[in-house]
């Protein structure tokens, strides 16, 4: 089992979700975050005081997949989130020790 953490541009969320659903994945968790990489921020001016806003709004998607679906899932996220412009985001993959479905107490891949 692997956990995918993907940080994407917020307006790409629907496309990423559709791409993942299309390959058969049924769940994910989404958080609103702020961050920056190499994409620069923008300046705002309030009554003559200039602020450089470094932290840009992004969306973080967490999902856990079985090993055999990992590659397809990553490809789906890339396909849905890519714009080709700077700031598209990043995908990280982490190992997962176990998973449990709370309602039925199933464990392992069945619980994904």
């Amino acid at each position: 089992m692997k956990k995918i953490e993907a940080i994407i541009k917020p307006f790409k969320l629907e496309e990423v979700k559709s791409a993942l659903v299309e390959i058969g994945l049924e769940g994910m968790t989404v958080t609103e975050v702020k961050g920056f990489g190499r994409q620069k921020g923008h300046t705002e001016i309030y009554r003559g005081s200039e602020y450089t806003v470094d932290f840009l709004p992004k969306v973080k998607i967490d999902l856990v997949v079985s090993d055999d679906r990992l590659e397809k899932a990553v490809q789906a996220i890339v396909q849905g989130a890519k714009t080709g412009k700077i700031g598209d985001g990043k995908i990280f993959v982490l190992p997962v020790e176990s998973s449990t479905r709370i309602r039925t107490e199933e464990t392992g891949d069945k619980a994904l």
Partner: protein
Amino acid sequence: MKNWMLPLLLVTGLGLFSSPARSQTAAPIPASTAALEARVAGLEAYVKNSDPAGSKVTGVPGPGHNAWMMVSSALVLFMTLPGLALFYGGLVRTKNVLSVMAQCLGIAGLVTILWWALGYSLVFGKNFNCPFLGGSEYFFLRGVDFAPNTDYSYWVSQSVFCMYQLMFAIITPALIVGAIAERMQFKALMLFVSAWMFVVYFPLAHMVWGSTGFMNGVWNPQAFIPAVDFAGGTVVHMSSGWSALILCLILGKRIGFGTEPMPPHSLVLCMVGTGMLWVGWYGFNAGSALASDGIAANAFLTTTLAAAVASFTWAVAEYILKEKASVLGFCSGAVAGLVVITPACGFVDATGAVLIGICAGLVPFFAVIKLKSWFRYDDALDTFGVHAVGGTLGALLTGFFATEKANPNLTVASVAGKNGLADLVSSHKLWIAQIEAIFITLALSIVATVILGYTLKALIGLRPAPESERQGLDTTDHGEEGYVY
């Protein structure tokens, strides 16, 4: 065909029934013509807002004027609660939004108590026979009831007049909040305001608006300086604005000022507050006529023109400078226009109002955008830039644009003719008296705030602890959070 029959019948009927009276000799004239004349004169005085002496309507308020003044009082309170609370609240960071609101609420309650006990009398009494303070006859609002105080108005209940003026007394210190926002302890501010009211506001308001006032050109025939201030350019905006500057310098900058971003947390709230300020200002300006009359009508018009023109001018200036017209710019411009027209609104005409609006959109704009970056003072919400600079500008421009065509009191023989105001107005030298009044206001506000500010700083300290300031005053001073998600 039937449409003309009914009117014809009515006219004929009227003719039939009225002609017998006209064909007789004239009815007997009432015996007490003089008494009737006096009564009619009293009612005419009500309509014209003049003295009803000798009639049967002395010592009672005029319903229309009283109604308008009660509405105006509510409008001016609305400017503070919630107008200013929202305007300033939206401009600070989330963690301090409630502190601004608490400061407005606290000042409202505190000043009301001071006004009831001593303030009203110190401003509008006269038994001290002093040009700098009024009197003691109205302490605890003794004798303040439904009857008009004819020193100030023939037709407005003194109780209503007292409440109207209270709202001015409330909003003036509330404006100072803008300069010290996010880094002054609540209790220090309440103590400062208490002292400031006695040392600055009550004397200044008496000097400008009291019947024995030092610089009340329109109403005190013995005024030393015949300056004019219709709704409070000196009393409200200059006093609060310049005091705010001094206090913010004594306080020092917010932690992180200049290095950390501190943008407004909600321009939505700020804009909503601006709308409330504009609407409420009609009570502030037009209500300062203390009657529902032609002068109030003119003030209503000039206020509207100045506010709208200033708002648009500020936006145009921003567009030229930055290629973006911001919401904050529109809001600041509108407020600046309202500030600058405040002393002038009852004395200038439409043209003057428009010219004042243009100046208001440019001079405070420059003050806010440039002065702060040049001198690096942390006037958090631009109280100095808008109210001090705007109020001073307005007081001066009043000297240039005031015209007796807009307000005959500027040249009336009974007062303006005696204290020199009429001469100044007709020789276009009113600006000289205005400059004198400006200077006195500046001196009083600055010196008093230096003394009060440093004294309080030494006695109890003004700022919260750095960790408290970091955490935000909402939790540390008030135990509350503005937004709970």
